[in-house]
C-alpha cells in the first residue's frame, strides 16, 4: 500500500511532505484534534452544509474536514494536468462527433447500440453544435493513485460536477487556522477559480453578445449543493436564478427583475438535463422553463454545460475513453483508465461472476457511491445476492479490479492514521483555453480500511496542495 506521506514502506517521509512532517512533530496532536472541532464550527457558522436527500426537510449536514493537507509535488501535478487536459479535449471532440457525424461509430470503435440505447444520449442535441464545439465546460475528473507516479482516472464528471466550493473553503479554512504553514510552503493558489469560471463562460459568448448577462441556475435552497451555487454566484457577482425566474419571450430568455424583464445570455446551469425544459425533456418537471431548449438551439442563450454531456461520462462509455483519445487526438492516453469489464458482454459477465469477491462492481448510471459492491469487503450473502442482480440485468453494471488506493494520514483521536483518498481536480474548458485549477477536492474515507470516499457514505475532505517547482 502506498502512503503519500511515508511511501510504500512507511518509514521515510517523502520529499513533498518534509516541512509538514517537521511541523507535525512540533504539534500537540491532542490539541490539534480539538482544533478540528473549531474548524467544524467555522463551517457551520458560514453555512457550508449539504442537504441530505431522504432526510427530514431542513436537515443540513457538514462534510467532515480533516486538517492534515494532502500534498502533490510539482512534477506529480504536471502528469495530472497534461493528462486531464488531453482527456477533456477528447471528451469534447467525442460529444461533438456523437451529436453530429458519428464517425467513431462508423469506424467501428464504439458499437451504435452503446450510444442509442444509452439513456444519457440526447437525440434532441443532434445536428446542433455549441459555440467552439464545447459541450462540457466544467468537468471534474476523479483520479486515484496507487504509487509515486501511478495515477489513473476513476471516472469523468461531465454533467454538473460539484464540490469546487469545498476545495475553496478548505483552503481558506486552512489559511485561517494555520497561517504559519503557508509561509513555510510554496503552495500554488486556487482562489482564482471563480474568476476563471466567469472568464471561461464569457469566452463562449463569441461576439454574439455585447456585455453578456451571465446567471447561475439552481434548483433551489433544498438542493444538496445549494451552498455551492450561492457561493459561486456570489464570487462571480452574477445572479443566482431558479427556473421560476426565467421565461422565454419572443425567442429570448428573460428574467423577471425589480425593473421589469431583462435578457439572460449565458446560463451556468446546476440543474440536470431533465429539469431544463418540460417541452423538450421531462414534461412533468416543475423546475424547468418551457421553451428554453429551443432558445438554446437558436443561439439566443448559452448553456454550460450543454445538455446531453452524460453520454461521455457514464461508466460504460468510460471504458472506451482511451480509444476515444486515440481516435480524435491521435495520441496515446497520458492518464490510464482502470481496467473495466462491461457486464453486457457474455465473457466479461462470466469472469466477473467468478471473481466477484475480488472486484468492485458499479451501476453504469450510478453515482454517489450508491448501489455498488466492493467484493473483498462483502459477505458471502452480499456476494450471492449481487451475482443474482448481475445475471438479471448485466447491462446495468461494470466491474473493476479492487485497487490498492493510496493513503494520506488523517488526524484521529489517537493521532495520525492512514486513510484512502481520491482526488477530483476541476477543469474549465472554453473555446480558447483549458484551465485546470492546481489541486482539487481530496475526498478521504474516514473509516479504517474503507475505500468509499463519497460524502454521502461518510467520507470527508482535505485541503490539497500543489507545490511550486
Amino acid at each position, binding site marked *: 500500500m502506498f502512503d503519500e506521506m511515508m511511501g510504500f514502506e512507511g518509514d521515510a517521509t517523502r520529499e513533498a511532505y518534509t516541512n509538514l512532517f517537521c511541523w507535525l512533530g512540533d504539534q500537540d496532536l491532542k490539541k490539534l484534534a480539538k482544533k478540528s472541532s473549531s474548524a467544524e464550527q467555522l463551517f457551520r457558522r*458560514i*453555512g457550508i452544509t449539504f442537504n441530505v436527500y431522504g432526510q427530514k426537510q431542513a436537515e443540513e449536514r457538514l462534510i467532515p474536514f480533516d486538517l492534515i493537507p494532502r500534498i502533490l509535488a510539482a512534477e506529480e501535478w504536471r502528469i495530472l494536468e497534461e493528462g486531464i487536459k488531453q482527456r477533456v479535449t477528447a471528451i469534447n471532440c467525442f460529444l461533438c462527433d456523437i451529436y453530429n457525424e458519428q464517425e467513431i461509430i462508423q469506424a467501428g470503435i464504439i458499437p451504435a447500440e452503446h450510444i442509442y440505447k444509452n439513456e444519457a444520449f440526447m437525440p434532441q442535441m443532434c445536428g446542433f453544435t455549441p459555440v467552439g464545439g464545447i459541450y462540457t465546460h466544467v468537468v471534474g475528473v476523479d483520479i486515484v493513485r496507487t504509487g509515486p507516479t501511478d495515477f489513473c482516472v476513476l471516472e469523468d464528471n461531465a454533467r454538473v460536477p460539484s464540490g469546487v466550493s469545498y476545495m475553496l473553503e478548505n483552503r481558506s479554512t486552512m489559511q485561517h487556522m494555520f497561517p504559519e504553514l503557508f509561509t513555510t510552503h510554496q503552495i500554488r493558489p486556487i482562489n482564482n477559480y471563480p474568476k476563471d469560471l466567469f472568464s471561461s463562460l464569457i469566452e463562449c459568448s463569441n461576439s454574439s453578445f455585447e456585455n453578456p448577462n451571465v446567471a447561475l441556475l439552481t434548483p433551489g435552497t433544498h438542493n444538496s449543493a445549494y451552498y455551492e451555487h450561492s457561493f459561486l454566484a456570489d464570487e462571480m457577482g452574477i445572479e443566482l436564478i431558479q427556473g421560476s425566474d426565467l421565461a422565454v419571450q419572443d425567442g429570448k430568455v428573460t428574467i423577471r*427583475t*425589480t*425593473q421589469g424583464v431583462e435578457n439572460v445570455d449565458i446560463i451556468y446551469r446546476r440543474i440536470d438535463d431533465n429539469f431544463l425544459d418540460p417541452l423538450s425533456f421531462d414534461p412533468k418537471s416543475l423546475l424547468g422553463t418551457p421553451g428554453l431548449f429551443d432558445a438554446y438551439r437558436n443561439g439566443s442563450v448559452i448553456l454550460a454545460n450543454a445538455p446531453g454531456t452524460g453520454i461521455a461520462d457514464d461508466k460504460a462509455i468510460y471504458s472506451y475513453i482511451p480509444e476515444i483519445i486515440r481516435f480524435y487526438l491521435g495520441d496515446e492516453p497520458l492518464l490510464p483508465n482502470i481496467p473495466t469489464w462491461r457486464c453486457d458482454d457474455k465473457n466479461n459477465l462470466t469472469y466477473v461472476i467468478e471473481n466477484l469477491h475480488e472486484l468492485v462492481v458499479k451501476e453504469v448510471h450510478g453515482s454517489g457511491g450508491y448501489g455498488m459492491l466492493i467484493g473483498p469487503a462483502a459477505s458471502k450473502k452480499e456476494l450471492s445476492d449481487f451475482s443474482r442482480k448481475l445475471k438479471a440485468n448485466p447491462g446495468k453494471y461494470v466491474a473493476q479490479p479492487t485497487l490498492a488506493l493510496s493513503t494520506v494520514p488523517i488526524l484521529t483521536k489517537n493521532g495520525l492514521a492512514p486513510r484512502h483518498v481520491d482526488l477530483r481536480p476541476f477543469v474549465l474548458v472554453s473555446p480558447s483555453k483549458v484551465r485546470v485549477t492546481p489541486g482539487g477536492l481530496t475526498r478521504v474515507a474516514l473509516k479504517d480500511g474503507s475505500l468509499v470516499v463519497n460524502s454521502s457514505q461518510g467520507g470527508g475532505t482535505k485541503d490539497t496542495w500543489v507545490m511550486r517547482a
Partner: protein
Amino acid sequence: MLGRHADSLFWMARYLERSENNARRIQAAFHYALSREDDGREEWKTIISESGSEVVFRNKHSQLTLTDAINFLLRDRDNVNSIITLIYKARQNGRSVRANLTQEVWLSLNESWIACETALKRPVKIRDLPGVLEGIIKGSSLFRGALYGTMLHNDIFNFLRLGTYIERADNTLRIMNSKHHQLLPTARVIGGNEGQSQWEVMLRSLAAWRSFNWLRKGQLDPASVANFLIFDARMPRSINFCYREIKSNLGDLSNYYCSNYVSYQMACELLETLNVPNVGNKKIKPSEFISTHIVKNNEVSRAISTDFNLCKS
C-alpha cells in the same frame, strides 16, 4: 435584481423585525407578570391573540400556564409567529439571497439561527427566559449593525429597510390597537397601578419606556403616549419615524430605477397624516386612526410588491 430576490430580502427583514418585536413584547409581559400578585395571565392571553394564534394554542393547551405560554410563543413550530418559526423563515429567505448579502450580514443571520435553535431545543425554563430573550434581541442588533456597516446602500439595502419599517409600523400600530382602550382621552387613570403598568407594558414592548419617561419627566397621560408613539419623529418605533424611512427608501428606489411608483405616492400621502400630533383633538378617535393606518400600511406593502415584481404572477 430579481423580483424573487427582492421579495426574499423584504420578507427576511420583516420576519427578523417581527421576531425582535415579539421578543420585546414577551420581555415586557414577563416583566409585568413578575411585578404582580397574580401571574399576569391576561397579558399572555393578549399576546397570543395579538399574534393571531389563539386557536392553535387552545387546541394544544386546555388552560394557560406561564410555561406553556412562553414555550408556545418562543419555540412552538406550529405557531407561525413563534420566535423559532420567524427566525427560521428569515434564515430561509436569507439563504435564498445569500449572494446579495455581505458575509458579515449572512453570518449574523446564520449565527442568530444557530443560537436560537440551540437555546430553544428544549423547553425554556422560567429562570432561563431573560437570557434567551436578550440573546434574540442582541442577534437582531448585530444584524442591523452589520447591515449598516457593510452593505452597499443600494436597492438591496432599500428592500431590506422597507421590510423592516413596514413590519415595525405594523407592530407599533397593533400593540396600540390591542391596548387602545388605554389611549382614550377619558382613560385618565394616571397613578392607578393597573393603568400605570399597562402603559409600561406597551412602552416597554416598543423599547420606549425609558425614552418616554426621559422626555416627559415621568408624566404619563394617554394623549401624550399616543402622540409619542405615532407622531414623534425622534422615536425609532413611532409610525412617523417608520414612514419617513419608508418614504426615503422608496424615494431612493425611484431615483435608482428612474421611475415613478404608486407605493411611493402612497407613502408620501400617509406621511402627510403623521406630521401633526392630533390625539387629544376631540375630532380624532385614536382607535379609528390606528385601525385605518393598519389597513393603509398593508396597502403600501402590497403596492411595493406590485411595483417591484416582488411576488410571482
